[in-house]
C-alpha cells in the first residue's frame, strides 16, 4: 500500500511526469481516432433520418459531446487545481492550466453547434434557453480563468490564484445553472423546450457515446501535449530539462 502511494507521488514531479505524458500521448491519439471513425460512421451511415428534424439532427453527434466535455473538463480542472492547492504539487497546477484552453474550446464548439442547430429547428441562431445560457456563462468562466493566469507573471502565484478561482467557479456552477433554469421558467412563453430531443434510437445513443469518447480522448491527448510544453517552459533552468531534449 505504502509502496503504491509513493509510486503515484513520483509522477507529481515534473521530471518524471514529462516522459510519462510523452509515452501516453500516442495511445490517447489512437483511441481518439478509433472512437472518432466509429462514431462518425454511425453518425452518418447507420443512424436513421429523424422523423421530425430530418438530417439536421445529426448535429447532436458533435453538439452533445462538446457540451459534456466542456462541463467535465471544468470539473477535472477544478480537481487538479484543488489538489495543487492542498498538496502543493507542481504538476497539478500545470494540468489545470493545460486543460483550460481545451475546455474553452469545447464550450465554444458547443455554442457554435448549438446555434447551427437552433437556426433550422427554431428559426433563431440564439435562444435564451437555460442550457445555452449556462454554457455561455461557463465559457465566460473559462475565459476568466485563462485571463487571470495569463496576467500573473509568477507561475506559482498564477497556479494558486487560478486554483481559488476554479474552486469558486465549481461551487457557483450549480447555483448558476439552477438560477438560469429558474429564470427560464419564469420567462416561459416563446421559448422552445430543448429537452424534447428526437426520440432516441439505440443507434443514435451509440453514436453519441462513441463521439463523446472520441472528444474525451482528444481532450486528454491535447492537454498532455500542452502540459509538456508548460513543463519545459517553466523548468527550463533546471538540469534535467537540459538532458530531456536531445
Amino acid at each position, binding site marked *: 500500500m505504502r509502496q503504491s502511494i509513493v509510486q503515484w507521488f513520483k509522477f507529481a514531479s515534473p521530471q518524471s511526469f514529462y516522459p510519462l505524458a510523452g509515452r501516453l500521448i500516442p495511445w490517447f491519439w489512437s483511441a481518439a481516432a478509433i472512437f472518432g471513425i466509429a462514431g462518425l460512421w454511425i453518425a*452518418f*451511415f447507420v443512424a*436513421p*433520418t429523424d422523423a421530425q428534424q*430530418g*438530417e*439536421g439532427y*445529426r*448535429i447532436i453527434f*458533435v*453538439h452533445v459531446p*462538446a457540451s459534456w466535455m466542456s462541463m467535465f473538463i471544468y470539473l477535472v480542472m477544478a480537481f487538479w487545481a484543488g489538489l495543487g492547492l492542498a498538496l502543493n504539487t507542481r504538476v497539478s497546477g500545470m494540468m489545470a492550466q493545460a486543460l483550460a*484552453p*481545451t475546455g474553452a*474550446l469545447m464550450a*465554444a*464548439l458547443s455554442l*457554435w*453547434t448549438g446555434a*447551427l*442547430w437552433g*437556426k*433550422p429547428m427554431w428559426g433563431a441562431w440564439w435562444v435564451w434557453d437555460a442550457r445555452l445560457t449556462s454554457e455561455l456563462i461557463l465559457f465566460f468562466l473559462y475565459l476568466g480563468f485563462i485571463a487571470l493566469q495569463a496576467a500573473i507573471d509568477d507561475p506559482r502565484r498564477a497556479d494558486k490564484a487560478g486554483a481559488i478561482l476554479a474552486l469558486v467557479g465549481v461551487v457557483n456552477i450549480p447555483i448558476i445553472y439552477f438560477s438560469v433554469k429558474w429564470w427560464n421558467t419564469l420567462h416561459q412563453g416563446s421559448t422552445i423546450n430543448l429537452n424534447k430531443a428526437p426520440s432516441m434510437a439505440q443507434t443514435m445513443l451509440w453514436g453519441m457515446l462513441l463521439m463523446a469518447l472520441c472528444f474525451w480522448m*482528444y481532450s486528454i*491527448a*491535447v492537454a498532455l*501535449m*500542452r502540459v*509538456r*510544453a508548460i513543463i*519545459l*517552459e517553466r523548468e*527550463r533552468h533546471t538540469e534535467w*530539462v*537540459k538532458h530531456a*531534449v536531445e
Partner: protein
Amino acid sequence: MQWNSIGEFFAMGGYALYVWGSFGACVLLMVAEPFLVKRRLSEVRQSLIRERLADELDSQQRSQ
C-alpha cells in the same frame, strides 16, 4: 444506409449548411489546436537545444 448518391450525402436533406458547418468547425478547431500546441512545444524545445549548444561551445572555448 440512407444515401443514394454522394450528392445526396453532401446535401444532408437541405441541412447542409448547418450540419457541415457544425462538423466542419469541430474538425477545423480540433486540428488547429493540436497543431498550435505542437508548435509551442517544438519552439520551447528548439530554444532549449540552442541554449545547450551555446553552453557547450562556451565550455569548449574555455578549455582550449
